[in-house]
Each structure stands twice: as C-alpha cells, then as structure tokens.
C-alpha cells in the first residue's frame, strides 16, 4: 500500500497556527509551524513553565491480534513482552543489516493491542515494513495504519501537569513516566501519555482530529495563568538536542545502528530473534568503529548538521545535529567519531565554512531536569 503525496499535508490545527502568526515551513511533507513568538522564548517557556506543540504530523500504527505482542517484538529492538498494559517504551525498527527504519514509541493497550507512534516522514515506510514482515511470517496479527484517526498535542514543561489536570478527571500524578491511560481532556476522549521529546516533564495526548482545535484552544486558555506558550518545531529541536534525544535522519539513519547511536539500552538481545539481530550480534562481537558523542564549541561558531569534524588535522567524523543551547547558553552538538575518540574530553575541530573551529567532546545529556 502506498500513497502519492503531491502536496503538503496539513494538520487539523493549520488554521489555528496561522491565526497565531506562526511561521510555517515544510517538514517531512507537512506544513508545520517552526515558531510563533520565537524559538528562544518558546524553548524557555518549556524549561521554566509550559509549552504546547502540535505534533499531529506524527504517525500511528496499531497492531491487534493474538500474536500482536510477538509481532512487535519481532520487528522492534526493545522487549515488548515486558510491557505492562498501560505502559510505553522507546524502541526502534531495524533493517536486517542493523540500520534504522525508524525510532518509535510502543504503547501496550492490552495483551492483543499495541499502539505505535512513529515519525511523520517514515509512517508509510514503517507501516509497509511491519505489514511485510507480518505477512512473511504469517503471524496472527493485524497491522493497521491509523494516523488519520489521531491528532497529537504535546504539553511539556514543569507546569504541564497542573494545566492538563484542570481539564481531565484522570489523576495525572498517578500516571508514571512512560505510562499512559485513556480518559478525556476538555471533554474529548484522549489517550494521555506521560511521554515527551523535550527532556522536560509533560504529556503527549492523542485525540480525534475533530477535537484538535477545541482541545488546543482550551489548553492555551487554561494555561495562560501558567505562562503557556505555543511552540513550534524549532524549539522542539533545541529542546530535544539538549536532552540528547535522537532525531531520525540525523543521529539515526538506515546506515547507523543502535550501538553506534548510543542506544544500546533499547536493544534487548535476551528476548530472542528480531529483525536486525544478527547484524547487531556481529557488530557487538566485532565492536563498532564509530559512535555518537556530544560536543561543545570552544571557539567562535556553531557546528551545524553535516559539518565535518577533524581531530589532529585529519577528518574524523561529522556533526549530526548542532546549534545553540538556550538553556546552557553554549553552542552544542552531536557528532559521530571513531569509537576510541567518542568519549568526553577529546579536543576536536568542527569545520565551519572551511575553517577549523575548536570544540571538545562532553558527557551527555547536555541538560537533565531536576527530579521533582
């Protein structure tokens, strides 16, 4: 199954973004807000108060049936059988050669129903990948592409809980981190997940597309006294970078594996066979040659995605994501380096417009929120 995309897709909130004077850009085939008031202001709102993001472009794939759990475990790296009903985890879909198809969030709704949130630009590819494997193995599970049924809002920041709590009967403080529950928000049925992509506390809620505008408006209204700020993809990127969360197409691609991407923690070899396992076993046996590591600029300049990294006058790797860190007031980034150099404290040079600029590798995440 495939769909030709001849024009940009719009989320149900596109008109709302325009009325809020958002700057809209093309992102992965979607017409999306990159910023409203400004990336710095939005970033700081999430770190100190609360921000709301329209992430309706994200895709949803659902797997149902007696072998739903077995299929999820076969197509992904984390151990889905260990999930309890109402629990979610971060995982990855891999190719046989060990490279990433995508990174995903798996939610266990019941023993025979899993709800997977995937990247916007990968959603059809992911669906076809999973459906193909199901069919090859003839597993008793149904793979369904359900993106059109959901809008998704992310409410993130230390004040996310009090804002959303005013709009739901569900006791949000009872939802542990990376757990979720079905309830209502502002009177509309909602899947409320205690997850996020900002390094801050917060919730991601899945609602019907028709509910997106009223729910967005009520949350903005309710959040006013907490300093809520609508946030775009620009702040989403600076926030996730500070928290060292991977972005598909940057840190993780079809030609990088989870060990290289410093994501060994989502690979559960003990669970048995899964797609990509043999390649990962080999990688583990032989050892990977390159690895992701954080860096801070020391010289004047900002290392951006794709820039070369040199060590001792020799090309050594490349920047996968880079930019200013509004929270730390430093210029930070992530890069791939030879594995022996991918440790904190190594002097590197980022090639910025043909000039080497000094930087140093550092421990990550760059930012970690204080536990409440």
């Amino acid at each position, binding site marked *: 199954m495939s769909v030709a995309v001849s024009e940009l897709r719009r989320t149900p909130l596109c008109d709302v973004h325009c009325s809020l004077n958002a*700057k809209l850009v093309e992102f992965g085939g979607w017409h999306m807000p*990159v*910023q409203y008031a*400004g*990336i*710095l*202001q939005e*970033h700081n709102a999430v770190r100190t108060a609360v921000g709301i993001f329209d992430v309706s472009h994200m895709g949803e794939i659902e797997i149902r049936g007696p072998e739903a759990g077995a299929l999820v475990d076969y197509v992904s790296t984390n151990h889905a059988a260990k999930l309890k009903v109402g629990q979610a985890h971060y995982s990855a879909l891999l190719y046989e050669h060990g490279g990433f198809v995508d990174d995903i969030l798996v939610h266990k709704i019941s023993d025979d129903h899993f709800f997977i949130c995937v990247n916007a630009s990968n959603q059809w590819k992911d669906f076809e990948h999973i459906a193909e494997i199901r069919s090859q193995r003839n597993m008793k599970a149904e793979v369904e592409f359900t993106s059109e049924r959901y809008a998704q809002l992310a409410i993130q920041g230390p004040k996310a809980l009090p804002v959303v709590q005013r709009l739901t009967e569900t006791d949000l403080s009872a939802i542990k981190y990376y757990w979720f529950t079905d309830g209502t928000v502002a009177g509309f049925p909602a899947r409320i997940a205690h997850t996020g992509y900002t390094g801050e506390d917060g919730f991601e809620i899945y609602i019907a597309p028709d509910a997106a505008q009223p729910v967005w408006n009520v949350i903005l209204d309710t959040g006013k006294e907490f300093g809520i700020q609508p946030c775009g993809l*620009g702040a989403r*990127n*600076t926030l996730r970078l500070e928290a060292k969360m991977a972005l598909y197409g940057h840190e993780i691609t079809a030609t990088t594996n989870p060990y290289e991407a410093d994501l060994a923690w989502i690979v559960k070899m003990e669970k048995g066979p899964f797609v990509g396992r043999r390649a990962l076993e080999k990688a583990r046996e032989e050892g990977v040659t390159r690895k992701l590591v954080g860096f801070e600029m020391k010289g*004047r*300049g*900002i290392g*951006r995605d794709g820039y070369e990294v040199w060590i001792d006058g020799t090309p050594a790797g490349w920047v996968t994501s880079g*930019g*200013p860190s*509004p929270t730390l007031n430093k*210029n930070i980034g992530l890069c791939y380096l030879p594995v022996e150099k991918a440790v904190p404290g190594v002097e590197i040079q980022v090639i910025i*417009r043909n000039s080497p600029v000094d930087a140093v590798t550092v421990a990550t995440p760059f930012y970690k929120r204080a536990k409440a």
Partner: protein
Amino acid sequence: MSYPETYKYTKEHEWVHVADGEGTIGITDHAQHELGDIVFVDLPKIGSTVTKGQTFGSVESVKAVSDIYSPISGEVAAINELLGKSPEKLNEDPHGDAWLIKVKLAAPDEINELMSAPDYQKYIGAE
C-alpha cells in the same frame, strides 16, 4: 519597521548607506524576521576587502546559518563590536544600531545597481 529612503538594498536582503565615501552595511528587517532569534554574527577583520556579490560573513539564528553578501566592494574600515556581545540587537534594530560593517568604497558607482527602498519593499512583498 520602515525602510530608510537613503539606504540601498540587495535581493539577498542587505542594505548599504553611503556617506563621505564610506558605506555602512547591514541586513534588513525582513531578513532578521525570516531568520528569527539571532545568536551569532561572524564578521570580517578590519582591513580585509569585500567584493560586491560575494559573502563576507554570516548571521546565525537558533535554527539556521545565513551568509551575508556584500552590496558593494571595498576595504573594511570598521566592524560593529556591539554584535559580538549582543547579537540579538540585530533582531531589535537592524537598520540602525545593529549595522554590521563599514566599508571604504572601491567603486562608488556600484551603488546604482542596487534597489531603492520602495523597490525593495515591492520585492519582499512579491517574494
């Protein structure tokens, strides 16, 4: 923000103001707005030469880096030190305090090839 009538403008969204054989160069309000929060400005050294249509530096916002093209040719006589410490001034006063460099003009006639304020505003309206 108004576009001073005494300035000349480029299609790459720089402005230049010529007085006494010296041109002051900056980026336009439209440019700063498109870039968003500016966090870093990279400028040439005093005494170096800039060439019309060639890049002489860059402006970085939170989300992206953008090259700056010189509207005129000449020798750099001054750079705006203010932007080293406070690059955000470029968002606040792009046509005034947040100028980028001053250039001793090598070919004063070059200025005639640039857009007037009304033409530039028409240009960004249509862009």
